[in-house]
């Protein structure tokens, strides 16, 4: 193919024309940042170089505001935490050793803004992007999760977002054959103009299959494969329509990317075949910043140099300029490094899967990333300066002035007399209602390894069919807790995800996080961010679970009002045998129901307070020591067959936990609160609605009660027999207070989402 002839801004041309006005500001670079580029290069950048630096030095790609804080995830790890870590932060996704030669890679990422603009495609391509991260580690993706946040349920714009985003997550994930095993759906008006669409993917691989994003081996070939490159995702960069900056003709570039899940499914299978045949040395997915990112990262992580002919890129739109090709975020593309001797095998696999590819160039040891356009040099940079030496900001931050007043405003509304009505109201509320309307649009069966999924506490997937070795995953965040106290809020998010995983019976092992915040240029938001990272890093250290990777999403605000700080935390746990996983509902008549943990008067930030429009005070106290013991009890009793059901207490407290455990299999229970109220010094309402942490309810077979009690005693952990499973009465009978027929509870619980969206 002959290249379209542009008035190309070559390196030579840049040297000769130092004074050309460059649109760096329109591309998002700050004055000082542009000056640095000039300093690094010793001349003005070419148009193509400017394109690369501007996208790679953006907040999204360079983490320039968050880097100084994120360092803590590395600084605060102990030897012990690294024990199972095969690949840590910095690669496309972290890799965790789960034993028997198996490893797991997982990561959560945001696609918030695109999903507001075009909900279906935004959410769909969010799934697509995170799945490619997982493939590029050498893994087969095995499941996805989708923590979501929307504005108020009754806002006129909410149905557009809910319908589009849920259909987009499902449309892409279902088409890839990835079971969706969990997530979150939260409604809060702070997310009105900024819905949060976070997507998590997890993959499985053998230790020897780990692939890294580096270009090593001088003379090895660089290949781009998958979808063709179009003008996707470079709408903001239309100033690059003319590479010589003299013609101001408007360019029509799509602001949104359209996903092609079929192409990605084929890409998955084709990559797995490449890995199996050992024909790729290094591999990188193309996400944000497209070829700019892939070439500069591959080169700087490897032998340091790369030589690329850009006209070799297969295009969907032949009018794209070199800068646009470098910036394009077209989906479903991958870049790989292949030794010359493997070229033929590589091509055979591409042909089998009918995947297009083009050889772009080769690895060098010059320390330079050279990109040519039809033989003319348009980029000549040290790839490190593009990929790793971006600006780093120590942005000013300070504690919000309003926080004292908010924290002083504790929830004090009257305790309702009618507890039955209160439970019904809670369980019908937008955040506590059944999420079936959403999750029934997701395939949870495909691949045949799902051992637990919605609505249980964690998603559980078998990894090894022979041994039953498997993993559990949960994602959590509570924006209200984080608003009240970002340090504790982040710790609470980790505590809940950790607890959910342990409740399912898995041993928590590692963490991924997606930090969703407002503008870092607002010192109060920056403080929330700094506190959250500090809290999460501290809590990870205390619980002994390392952060293996994640994502930062800033500027989530509309009209100067930021979202609640929302650090979404995903925890990965491991099972020796998923046969031992614990469901969240009870089924066997006569089994004893125990409450583990202590209940305090902690209603600030709770769902109950939220239902009354109140947000003030301090979130529930965090006791990570207690969380650790609770987790150990849950994991051991699952392994030793001491419990048949377990459900953690989180939003909505005991009332929600009992309701959900009963609704899970439609089996009721008789519950007595007296002893609990007496022991913990709380009234029945508080017993039911407080959101004290480190608690769970479990169902213990009669034959196991002694053993179970002994174990709790040995660990000195508070537990109380609060009731018994009653398979006959079809009700949640809280003795002395109310009898709530499950049919009635189920009806209101399940009606909320269909009423708004069906």
């Amino acid at each position: 193919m002959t290249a379209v002839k542009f008035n190309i801004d070559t390196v030579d041309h840049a040297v000769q024309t130092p004074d050309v006005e460059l649109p760096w500001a329109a591309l998002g670079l700050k004055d000082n940042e542009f000056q640095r580029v000039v300093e690094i290069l010793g001349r003005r950048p070419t148009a193509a170089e400017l394109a690369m630096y501007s996208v790679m030095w953006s907040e999204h790609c360079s983490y320039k505001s968050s880097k100084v804080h994120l360092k803590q995830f590395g600084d605060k790890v102990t030897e012990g935490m690294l024990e199972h870590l095969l690949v840590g932060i910095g690669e496309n996704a972290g890799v965790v050793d789960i034993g028997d030669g198996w490893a797991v890679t997982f990561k959560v990422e945001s696609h918030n803004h695109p999903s507001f603009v075009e909900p279906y495609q935004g959410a769909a391509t969010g799934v697509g992007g995170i799945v490619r991260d997982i493939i590029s580690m050498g893994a087969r993706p095995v499941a996805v999760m989708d923590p979501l946040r929307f504005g108020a349920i009754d806002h006129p714009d909410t149905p557009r977002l809910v319908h589009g985003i849920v259909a987009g997550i499902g449309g892409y994930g279902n088409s890839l054959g990835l079971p969706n095993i969990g997530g979150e759906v939260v409604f809060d008006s702070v997310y009105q103009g900024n819905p949060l669409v976070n997507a998590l993917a997890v993959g499985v691989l053998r230790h020897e299959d780990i692939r890294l994003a580096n270009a090593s081996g001088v003379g090895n070939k660089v290949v781009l494969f998958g979808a063709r490159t179009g003008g996707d995702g470079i709408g903001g960069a239309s100033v690059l329509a003319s590479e010589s900056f003299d013609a101001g003709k408007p360019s029509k570039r799509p602001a949104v990317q359209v996903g092609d899940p079929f192409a990605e499914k084929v890409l998955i299978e084709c990559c797995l075949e490449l890995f199996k045949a050992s024909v790729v040395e290094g591999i990188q997915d193309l996400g944000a910043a497209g070829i700019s990112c892939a070439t500069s990262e591959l080169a700087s992580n490897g032998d340091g140099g790369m030589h690329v002919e850009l006209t070799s890129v297969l295009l969907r739109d032949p009018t794209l300029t070199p800068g646009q090709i470098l910036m394009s975020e077209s989906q479903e593309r991958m870049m790989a490094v292949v030794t010359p001797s493997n070229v033929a095998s590589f091509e055979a696999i591409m042909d089998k899967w009918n995947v297009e590819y083009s050889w772009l160039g080769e690895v060098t040891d010059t320390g330079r990333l050279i990109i040519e356009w039809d033989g003319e040099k348009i980029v000549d940079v040290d790839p490190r300066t593009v990929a790793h030496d971006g600006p780093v900001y120590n942005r000013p931050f300070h504690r919000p002035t309003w926080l004292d007043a908010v924290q002083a405003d504790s929830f004090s509304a009257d305790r309702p007399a009618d507890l039955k009505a209160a439970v019904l109201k809670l369980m019908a509320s937008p955040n506590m209602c059944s999420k079936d309307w959403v999750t029934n649009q997701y395939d949870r069966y495909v691949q045949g390894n799902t051992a637990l999924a919605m609505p249980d506490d964690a998603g559980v997937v078998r990894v090894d069919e022979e041994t039953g070795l498997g993993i559990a995953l949960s994602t959590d965040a509570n924006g209200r807790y984080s608003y009240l106290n970002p340090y504790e809020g982040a710790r609470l998010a980790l505590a809940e995800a950790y607890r959910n995983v342990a409740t399912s019976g898995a041993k928590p092992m590692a963490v991924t996080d997606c930090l969703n915040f407002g503008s870092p240029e607002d010192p109060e938001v920056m403080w929330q961010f700094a506190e959250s990272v500090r809290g999460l890093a501290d809590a990870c250290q205390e619980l002994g679970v390392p952060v293996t990777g994640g994502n930062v999403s800033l500027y989530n605000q509309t009209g100067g009002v930021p979202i609640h700080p929302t650090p979404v935390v995903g925890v990965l746990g491991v099972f020796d045998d998923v046969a031992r996983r614990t469901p969240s509902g009870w089924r066997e008549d006569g089994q004893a129901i125990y409450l583990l943990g202590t209940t305090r008067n902690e209603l600030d930030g709770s769902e109950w307070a939220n239902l009354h429009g109140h947000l003030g005070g301090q979130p529930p106290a965090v006791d990570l020591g207690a969380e650790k013991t609770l987790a150990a009890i849950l994991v051991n009793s699952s392994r030793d067959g001491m419990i048949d059901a377990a459900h953690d207490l989180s939003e909505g407290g005991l009332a929600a936990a009992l309701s959900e455990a009963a609704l899970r299999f439609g089996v009721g229970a008789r519950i007595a609160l007296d002893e609990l109220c007496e022991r913990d010094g709380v009234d029945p309402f508080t017993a039911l609605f407080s959101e004290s942490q480190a608690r769970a309810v479990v169902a213990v077979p009669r034959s196991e009660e002694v053993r179970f009690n002994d174990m709790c005693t040995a660990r000195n952990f508070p537990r109380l027999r609060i009731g018994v499973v009653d398979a006959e009465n079809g009700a949640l009978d809280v003795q002395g207070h109310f009898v709530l027929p499950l049919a009635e509870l189920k009806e209101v619980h399940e009606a909320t989402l269909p009423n708004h969206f069906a």
Partner: protein
Amino acid sequence: MTVETPLIGSSAAPIPDETLTGIRVGVISFPGSLDDRDAMRAVRIAGGTAVDLWHGDHDLKGVDAVVIPGGFSYGDYLRAGAISRFAPLMEQISAAASSGTLPVLGICNGFQVLTEAHLLPGSMIKNNHLHFLCRDQRLKVENTTTAWTSSYNAGDEIVVPLKNQDGQFVADERTLDELEGEGRVVFRYVGGNPNGSRRDIAGISNAAGNVVGLMPHPEHAVEAGFGPDSSAFGDVGLRGGVDGLDIFTSVLKKLVK
């Protein structure tokens, strides 16, 4: 009644049967097939030998039966199954299937491929509620003379997962009457029609009974611990439903004879 903590795989552990192992069931993969490995697992759990077939090949590898699995072949972009129908291997399958000799089961997308290939009448359109729907679905087995249902008793009900977006079975009234009259409605939805399918039809067969298409997924109800939470044959453990397994044992047993 006391039930132990359910152990995955306990009730589905195949009893090795040498005669069944000799039966080779091919599972065809198209680009975009998703439940192909699951269908192969189901064949193995039922005791047979699963053989993977590639859509682009021209060789049926001497298989005794074929499963066309679920998924979104070619993205289902044009119409579900429309492009796959023209795959090279489909020619062999069509020929053998229409001669009445080769047992062929199309599950979900596979069913759609069979209708597009005119091996089965009718077609599938978008669900009446327009959403993808994943749920555990109760079905009635109405014809137990087909190659794929002989291990059931007429009138048996089963619970298997359903998951699709274009699952609404449609055909003109004459065709529907014909299907009913000839007993070719093999599976019918009970306990609620999930997608608007005419006459609650979930699965049908050709006149010879060797070709069966079914929208829900029996291959996801074959292994205790990974199936639906319920069964029509009584209480089961957590995700213990294996009601779909007999679809696969039916064909193996039939072929042994």
